């Protein structure tokens, strides 16, 4: 008898240990996934918060920038000319185009801003930062190819043979594909014959003198030229910039202050962020009063009968309706029937209000229900009317719960994509919306749009936008938790 019992107890303990282990394992796996997800996004997105600029001397030519009309000045021309002046050897049309590819189309923005802020600069020579293109920026972030520079040991003799060059001397470390920089030029190794190196000129050497130890070096690129978006020539030009220490890395405020763009380095999330704020504001303004009013009525005033039961069931069902359905509803009702503008935060807000309304009603009802009936009784007992009891006693006590539910609903609205696709908030919109009727997009849709683009820089921007979205959502949740803790009341 005693043996059986001990057996039984041991079994129970074993079962308890198993359960604990399973729980801990589940938690561990979840945490692992979360850490993996977050770190992946942060690692990918972090570089997008920085950008590279090249510092150049630019003379603001009064012929190109009219002091009377500084807005209309040809700043692009000035910056491009100044940049080309750094590379006097680049003359061919193709090379000039490749060289231009290093600078962003918005490279002249800084110069324009400086001159517009101080027209007295016209005619003077300034140190101006010029934004690099996304590909050049990625190169300096090390995301195009790995670059290793090895100083040359020994001497090299360089001779020209028609179009190509023959290099002899201490060439034992040189392999095919490397770039040898010597005598003001850059030669790419095409083939090796013993210690004789055949090479083609990326940048033609200025002299054919013997290069001694320290006068030459070897660039090794880890990614093949065909597999990256900048060619070897551009690498050489950019290495030249790096050597002259004229490239600087700064925080990319532009990411937060500009709208979308086709150029990755110019694209920012301000448009989407403002669009999101407008959209969520519209939905909050609609859903909060409607939701709370509905919840108060259903919870405190409505008679309990078949009709209110039906309404209750339907509200719960609405909370479970896939969000894209709400998008279709919005398309049919707000756009097609009421003729509201397409892509507008107004319509987005209306649709999201429908989406979060059930959530808010359910949360608000739960919060109202959590207020003990003794409070209502106490108020009624001293002669308060039902309405006074509800609005002066029950509602204030339910506010934290209602707010928590509302914020969680808002967080859902903030992250919602599908219904907004239906009402056209998925267009490419470069301008930051000024009001709820302007065409706009929202953060999650912007993420969706960027994730679709082929440029590598946009992949980074996508992750960066996800970081911003997550920060917003985490903050909203943190506020909800704070409110809950702050106003939590024990009865």
């Amino acid at each position, binding site marked *: 008898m005693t043996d059986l019992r001990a057996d039984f107890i041991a079994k129970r303990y074993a079962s308890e240990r198993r359960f604990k282990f399973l729980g801990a394992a589940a938690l561990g796996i979840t945490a692992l996934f979360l850490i993996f997800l977050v770190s992946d996004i942060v690692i990918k997105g972090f570089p997008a918060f920085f950008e590279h600029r090249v510092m150049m001397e630019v003379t603001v030519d009064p012929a190109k920038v009219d002091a009377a009309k500084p807005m209309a000045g040809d700043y692009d021309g000035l910056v491009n000319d100044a940049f080309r002046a750094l590379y006097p050897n680049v003359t061919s049309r193709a090379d000039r185009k490749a060289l231009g590819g290093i600078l962003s189309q918005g490279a002249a923005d800084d110069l324009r801003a400086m001159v517009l802020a101080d027209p007295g600069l016209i005619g003077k020579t300034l140190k101006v930062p010029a934004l690099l293109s996304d590909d050049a920026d990625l190169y300096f972030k090390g995301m195009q190819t790995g670059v290793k520079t090895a100083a040359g040991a020994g001497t090299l003799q360089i001779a020209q043979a028609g179009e190509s060059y023959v290099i002899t001397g201490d060439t034992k470390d040189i392999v095919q594909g490397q770039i040898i920089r010597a005598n003001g030029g850059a030669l790419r190794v095409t083939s090796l014959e013993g210690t004789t190196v055949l090479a083609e000129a990326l940048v033609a050497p200025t002299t054919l003198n013997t290069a001694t130890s320290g006068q030459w070096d070897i660039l090794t690129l880890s990614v093949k030229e065909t597999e990256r978006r900048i060619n070897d020539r551009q690498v050489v030009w950019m290495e030249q910039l790096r050597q002259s220490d004229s490239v600087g890395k700064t925080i990319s405020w532009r990411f937060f202050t500009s709208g979308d763009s086709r150029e990755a380095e110019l694209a920012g999330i301000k448009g989407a962020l403002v669009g999101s704020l407008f959209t969520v504001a519209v939905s909050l303004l609609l859903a909060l009063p409607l939701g709370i009013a509905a919840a108060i009525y259903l919870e405190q005033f409505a*008679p*309990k009968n078949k009709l209110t039961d039906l309404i209750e069931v339907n509200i719960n069902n609405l909370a479970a309706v896939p969000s894209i359905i709400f998008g279709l509803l919005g398309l049919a009702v707000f756009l097609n029937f009421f003729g509201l503008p397409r892509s507008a935060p107004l319509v987005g807000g209306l649709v999201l209000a429908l989406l979060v309304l059930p959530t808010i009603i359910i949360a608000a009802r739960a919060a109202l229900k959590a207020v*003990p009936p*003794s*409070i*209502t*009784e*106490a*108020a*009624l*007992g*001293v*002669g*308060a*009317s*039902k309405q*006074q009891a509800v609005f*002066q*006693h029950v509602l204030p*006590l339910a506010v934290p719960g209602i707010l928590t539910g509302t914020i969680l609903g808002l967080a859902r609205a903030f992250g919602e994509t599908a219904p907004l696709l239906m009402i056209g908030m998925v267009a490419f919109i470069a301008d930051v919306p000024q009001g709820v009727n302007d065409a706009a997009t929202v953060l999650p849709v912007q993420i969706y749009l960027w994730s679709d683009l082929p440029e590598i820089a946009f992949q980074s921007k996508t992750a960066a936008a996800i970081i911003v979205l997550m920060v917003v959502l985490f903050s909203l949740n943190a506020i909800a938790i704070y409110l809950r803790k702050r106003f939590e*009341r024990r009865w």
Partner: protein
Amino acid sequence: MNAPFQTVVTPASPRIIADRPMKIEAKDVNIYYGEKQAIKSLSIDIPDRAVSAFIGPSGCGKSTFLRAINRMNDTIPTCRITGNITIDGRDIYDRDIDVVQLRAKVGMVFQKPNPFPKSIFENVAYGPRIHGMAQNKTDLEEIVVASLKKASLFEEVKDRLTAPGTGLSGGQQQRLCIARAIAVNPQVILMDEPCSALDPIATAKIEELIDELRQNYCIVIVTHSMQQAARVSQLTAFFHLGTLVEFGDTDEVFTAPQEKRTQDYITGRFG
């Protein structure tokens, strides 16, 4: 200062009912929750300026009837009432009766102390404020202080009127609830097992308070404790299965009940 458990009831004069003006008169009252009948054809006359205790086993309808006196049952959708209950000769279920005014006139103290989660001052001031009983702040303060004094709570809380009412001890909270009820100047105070959540010392204080309040109010108290009924009430009504079995002077009900069921209950044969 009275020691706890001291019997505070003054010896009741015989035939209290006959001597006093009636405050509450109920005739042939039936109360239903949906299909279930909770009160069956109940008639009772409750005198003013006395404590009437309702005793009886759980589910006998005493609380239901108590809550009918200030129409608190109105908040329960399935609850239905027939017959009539008058206070000072006015039918409280009449169409002309404003339930808000009725509840101001018939205050209620609940089983569990339920102060508002507000300051002590606000708890008491709420009633006078919504009824516009105070012209200005000074008036309101006077009412609050007077009510707290009547509820024998003022001395304990005078230095912390702005502290939350929920921070008081259970007994103090219940006295705060009584002060809150008194503040709107009621004529009747209904108490639904006001001491069941309190310890003996707090109970003794409340009982002492009830005995003082009896001078000015018609008090009806529902209690599970027969000792309490014996201590605080002048009249006792015994309820059983939704009917009023016996109603009379407390002394008589407890010493010489006329009904066998009353005797059985009091002597502990069922309950």
